């Protein structure tokens, strides 16, 4: 069954779909082998072009260009669009200025995270909402269910459920090929050379000033090389300088090549999903299904984003559960640094995190090698998440032969083990 249960949990059965090409697929196969292209969230996407390490370094030192056209882009419009988004998402929407973006969550009435999103205010009554590729079908279905009064809005107070159907709001898929105009897909240009690269695509000095002057989570609508771009200072790499460019899908291949041509002399590289993952892990940023929701059902508070859940708002779906979790949560996401020189076995998802006495205090959620270090995001006891805390990791068995030799395939909390590698909790959100 699909839809809301009586307890407010929203159930969605995602259908297996044959992965299709992203709108940049032809560009990818020109620049990388087909063996480096993999199915991801329904799209055939590049894992890397040159190498994950080289692309990671390009973003930190120069800039990198990412195909994010798989991300869901929705338009929420109507006289009550702001009021609707204030009910459906956890952050404040009505108080946003035009030209600003905000990070938040869509929850179900039981408080489960359905997605983490960014809301962009383009006008008084017009918003763009960017959702994860993997969650897009679920979010579209959920919003439809909410508007059609099929989904549970609140398990405790039904007054808010009655407000939803009366609202003047419509939701559209901005990537829909049948949409007549203002279609949008996402490209991300991230790293210090991003500004100089974009400046090379326009002769208009004022446009460059407006792009350069953008604050974090602010955007402008400009023309670059004749292409309408919504340019926002957001990203998923931890870069202080970085942009997401929302453009017509038909213009995406041209802009992709223009950016790489203009940025080539500056050392700008095309980057795949591998570097996208290692950059976001190094920066401490969560990935839905790993550091949010997933098998531990991780809440925004445990993920380190309590600030994006406005408990002071009159109402949002999932508020009662969030209030409860905010007062009681006992584990959180920590960013741990390990040695990572070549020849050290890589830390992987689900490996056990140990305290100094060797007791399991949590598990690795995501991990990446960056230069001579490894960084893990791990779900650990809150008193173990403080910067400077020394922790160890126990590698789970990687193969049947290791299981035969006695290595565990799963570790429960409190189990005492010998650490394979020693590390330390580092600052959760470093800036680059």
């Amino acid at each position, binding site marked *: 069954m699909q839809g809301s249960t009586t307890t407010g949990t929203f159930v969605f059965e995602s259908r297996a779909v044959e992965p299709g090409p992203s709108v940049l697929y032809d560009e990818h196969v020109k620049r990388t*082998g087909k*063996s480096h292209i993999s199915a991801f969230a329904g799209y055939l996407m590049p*894992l*890397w072009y040159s*190498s*994950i*390490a080289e692309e990671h370094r390009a973003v930190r030192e120069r800039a990198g260009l990412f195909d994010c056209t798989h991300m869901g882009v929705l338009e929420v419009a109507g006289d009550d669009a702001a009021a609707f988004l204030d009910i459906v998402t956890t952050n404040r929407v009505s108080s946003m200025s035009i030209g600003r973006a905000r990070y938040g969550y869509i929850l179900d009435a039981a408080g489960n995270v359905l997605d983490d999103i960014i809301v962009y205010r383009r006008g008084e009554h017009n918003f763009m909402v960017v959702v994860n590729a993997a969650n897009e079908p679920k979010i579209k279905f959920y919003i439809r269910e909410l508007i059609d009064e099929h989904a549970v809005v609140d398990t405790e107070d039904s007054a808010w459920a009655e407000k939803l159907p009366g609202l003047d709001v419509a939701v559209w898929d901005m990537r829909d090929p049948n949409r007549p105009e203002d279609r949008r897909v996402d490209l991300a240009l991230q790293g210090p050379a991003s500004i100089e690269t974009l400046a090379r695509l326009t002769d208009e000095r004022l446009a460059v000033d407006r792009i350069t002057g953008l604050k974090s989570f602010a955007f402008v609508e400009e023309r670059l090389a004749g292409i309408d771009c919504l340019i926002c200072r957001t990203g998923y790499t931890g870069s202080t300088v970085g942009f997401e460019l929302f453009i017509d899908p038909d213009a995406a291949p041209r802009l992709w090549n223009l950016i790489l041509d203009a940025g080539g002399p500056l050392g700008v590289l095309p980057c795949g999903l*591998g570097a996208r993952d*290692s950059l976001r892990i190094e920066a401490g940023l969560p990935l839905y299904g790993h550091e949010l929701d997933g098998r531990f059902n991780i809440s925004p508070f445990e993920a380190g984003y309590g600030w994006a859940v406005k408990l002071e708002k009159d109402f949002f779906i999932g508020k009662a559960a969030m209030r409860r979790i905010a007062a009681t949560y006992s584990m959180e996401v920590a960013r741990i640094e390990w040695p*990572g020189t*070549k*020849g*050290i*076995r*890589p830390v*992987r998802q689900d490996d056990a995190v140990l305290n100094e006495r060797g007791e399991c205090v949590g598990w690795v959620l995501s991990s*990446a*090698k960056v230069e001579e270090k490894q960084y893990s995001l791990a779900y650990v006891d809150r008193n173990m998440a403080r910067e400077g805390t020394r922790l160890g990791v126990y590698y789970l068995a*990687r*193969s*049947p*032969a*290791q299981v035969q030799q006695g290595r565990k395939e799963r570790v429960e909390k409190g189990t005492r083990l010998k650490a394979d590698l020693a590390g330390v909790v580092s600052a959760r959100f470093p800036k680059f």
Partner: protein
Amino acid sequence: MAVKEGLRYTKDHEWIKVEGDTGTIGITDYAQEQLGEIVFVELPQVGKQFAAHKEISVVESSKAAGDVYCPVAGKVTEVNAELESKPELVNEDCYGAGWICKLKIADKKALDELMDAKKYEEYLKAL
């Protein structure tokens, strides 16, 4: 994808080079390419016996762990200890400096079941 003449190949993308009773084992260009940047190679113990198709090594990249299966039964006589500090040799020279271990082959007839370079190339094309 490079395939080298004179070696025997498995469907799991291992190669074996036979000299007398000794077989040198590694993974193919296709396999290293699939794994990406290799950062760790678990070497087998010298003296240990392996049956054919048993896991003899684990090669790990930053994205995946790949099992290496023994192409034919035998006893490990030597391992490439250089891979402990330079696992990237598997990426750079998978048929040469990136070899994993040497094996005293139990029964050389078993080699007939493996593919030669031409067959392996056809096998890759069909993937």
